[in-house]
C-alpha cells in the first residue's frame, strides 16, 4: 500500500501546486482591491488554450508559453481597467457580480475564439513515466512542482526587493497609508490583476499536459483555487501555497481512499468548514470589521 500512498501524494501535490498558483492570484487581487475575482479561473483557461493555439500556429514551445502568459496578462489588465477600476466604490454584491459577469464573458469569448473541445499540450519533457519511491510519476508533475517553487521564490524577491512589489505589499496592509505616502493605488490595482492573470496562465500552461484544457476548465479550477486561498487565509501568500498543497493532498488521498466520485466535493466542504469554523484561515491574515 505504500507505493499507492506515494502515488496519491504525488498526484495531490501536483494538482495542489496548481491550486496554490491560482490561490496566489486570488490573494494578490484581494490584497490590492478587496475584490474576490471570480474570473481568476478563466486566466488559467486562457493560458492553456492560448498556448495550444500558438503551438498549432507553429510557434516553438517556450515562445508559445511566453505568448500565452502575455495574452492572459493583457486580459487581466483590461479587466482591471475597464471594470474594476470603474466600480471601485461599489458594494460587495455589485463587485462579486461584476467579476462573475467577467468570467462568463471570458468563457463565452473563449468558446468563440476557440471551440468547445478538449485540448492537450504536449508535456515539457516527454511522456515516459518515472519510477520514484515505487510510484509512477509523469515528468510533467516534476515540472509543475519545480516551476511552482521557482515562482514562489521569484514572487518573494519581487515583493521584498522591487519598488512595485513593495508598493503592492504596502497597499495590502493599509491602502490609505499607502496612498498618503504617494503610492499610485490605481497602478497597484492594475499590476495586481496583471500579476494574478500571469500566475493563472502559468498554472494553465503547466497543467494542460496532464489534465487537458478546454473553454470551461476555468470554473472548477477557479473555485478550487479560491478554496485554497481561504484555507490558508485570504490575503496571505504563504497561506495560499499551504492551502493549495493541503487541498490537493486532501483531494488526492480522499479520491483514492474514500470515493473518487465525490472528489470535487472536498474543495467545497473545505470552503464551508473554513468559513464556519475559522474564517481567517490557517494563517489568519484578515482583520475584522470595525464597529
Amino acid at each position, binding site marked *: 500500500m505504500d507505493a499507492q500512498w506515494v502515488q496519491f501524494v504525488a498526484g495531490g501535490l501536483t494538482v495542489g501546486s496548481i491550486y496554490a498558483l491560482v490561490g496566489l492570484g486570488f490573494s494578490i487581487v484581494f490584497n490590492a482591491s478587496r475584490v*474576490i475575482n471570480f474570473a481568476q479561473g478563466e486566466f488559467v483557461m486562457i493560458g492553456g488554450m492560448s498556448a495550444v493555439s500558438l503551438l498549432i500556429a507553429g510557434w516553438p514551445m517556450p515562445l508559445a508559453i511566453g505568448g500565452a502568459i502575455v495574452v492572459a496578462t493583457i486580459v487581466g489588465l483590461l479587466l482591471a481597467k475597464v*471594470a474594476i477600476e*470603474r*466600480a471601485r466604490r*461599489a458594494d*460587495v*454584491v*455589485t463587485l*462579486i*457580480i*461584476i467579476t*462573475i*459577469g*467577467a*468570467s*462568463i*464573458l*471570458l*468563457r*463565452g*469569448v473563449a*468558446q*468563440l475564439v476557440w471551440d468547445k473541445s478538449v485540448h492537450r499540450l504536449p508535456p515539457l519533457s516527454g511522456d515516459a513515466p518515472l519510477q520514484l519511491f515505487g510510484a509512477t510519476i509523469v515528468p510533467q508533475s516534476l515540472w509543475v512542482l519545480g516551476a511552482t517553487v521557482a515562482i514562489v521564490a521569484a514572487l518573494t524577491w519581487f515583493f521584498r526587493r522591487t519598488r512595485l512589489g513593495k508598493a503592492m505589499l504596502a497597499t495590502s496592509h493599509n491602502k490609505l497609508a499607502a496612498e498618503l505616502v504617494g503610492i499610485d493605488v490605481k497602478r497597484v490595482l492594475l499590476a495586481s490583476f496583471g500579476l494574478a492573470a500571469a500566475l493563472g496562465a502559468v498554472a494553465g500552461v503547466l497543467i494542460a499536459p496532464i489534465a487537458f484544457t478546454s473553454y470551461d476548465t476555468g*470554473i472548477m479550477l477557479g*473555485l478550487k483555487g*479560491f478554496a485554497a486561498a*481561504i484555507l490558508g487565509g485570504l490575503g496571505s501568500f504563504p497561506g495560499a501555497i499551504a492551502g493549495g498543497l493541503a487541498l490537493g493532498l486532501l483531494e488526492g488521498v480522499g479520491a483514492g481512499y474514500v470515493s473518487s*466520485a*465525490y472528489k*470535487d*466535493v472536498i474543495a*467545497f*466542504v473545505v*470552503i*464551508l468548514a473554513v*468559513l*464556519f469554523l475559522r*474564517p481567517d484561515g490557517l494563517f489568519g491574515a484578515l482583520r475584522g470589521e470595525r*464597529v
Partner: protein
Amino acid sequence: MDSSVHFEANASSRGSRMRGVALAPHTRLLLLLALVVASGPLVIPNAYFYDVAILVAFNAIVCVGLNLLIGYAGQISLGHAGFFALGGYGTALLTTRYGVPPLVALAGAVAAVALLAFVVGRPILKLKGHYLAMATLGLGIIVSIVLTTEDRITGGPDGMQVPALTLLGFAVQGERVWYWIAGGALLATVFVVSNLIDSPTGRALRALHTSEIAAEVVGIDTARHKLLAFIVSASLAAFAGALVAFYSGFVTPAKASFLHSIELVTMVVFGGMASTGGAIVGAAVLTVLPQVLTVFKDYEMVVFGALLMATMIFMPRGIVPTLAALVLRRS
C-alpha cells in the same frame, strides 16, 4: 404629545403631498400583473410563446423570492439553484417512489426545502459579503454534485421522470391550463411577498440592510429576520422548481448548477434590486433573451456576461429602479 418644543419650521418639501390615487405601490403592481396575465391569451399566438410565458412566470417566482433576500435584506445567495432543483427532485421522489399524490408531494418538497434552509441558514447567515457568497456557492455546488452522483436515488446526470400533476383527479395538461396555473402562482407569490415587504417585518429587513446595529438597537432580531428572508426565498425557489418539474415532466441535476444560480442572480440584479416589479422584468427579459438569441446560440454567454457587467457598472440598482428614478427626475 403637544408640540411645545419649538423647532425651526422648515419649509415643507414635496414629500408630503398626497399621491393622486390612494393605492399602495404594491397593490398597483398586483393589479397591473393581473391585467397582464389576464390579457395574455389575447396576444399569445401559439404554443411556443405560451411555453415561454410559462417559463417566465416560473423564473419570476424564484426571482421575486430571491429579490427579497438580495435586494431587501441585503444578503446574497449564489446557490439558489440548489433549492430550486431540490424542490423538483423532492417532488419527483415523493411521487414516483412513494406514490404520494402530486399536490401533497409539492407541499412536502417545499416544506422539506424550507426545513433545510432553516438548518443551513442559521450558521451560514452569520457570514457576510464575500464569505456568504462563497458559502452559498459551495452549498449549491455540493447539492449539484450529490444530485449527479447518487444515481440510484436521483437517476444521475440524466435525471428522473416526474408524473403529471393532477388536480381533483384531472391530469393537468396543455399549455393553456399551465399558463393559468403559472400566472396564478406568480400572482399569489407577488401578493404574499409584497405583503411581507409592506409590513413591520419588511421594514425590519430593509433596516438591517442599511445598518444592522441600528436595527438591533430598535429591537430587531437581525439573525432571525435574515433567516426568515432566507427561508421564504428558498421555499419560493423550491415551489417554482416543483412546478417546473411537473410542467416539463422531468428533473435533471443541471437545474442545480452554478450557472443556473448565476442566471437567477442576474435576473434579480438586472431587473432591479429592492423592486418586486424589477425582479419580474428581469426574469422576463432574461428568459426571453436566450430564446431570441437561439439564432446566435454561440453568442449567448458573451451577451450574458457583457450584460451582467454593464448593468452592474453603469446601472448598479438595476433597470427598473434606474428608469423609475429617471422618470421621476423629469416630472
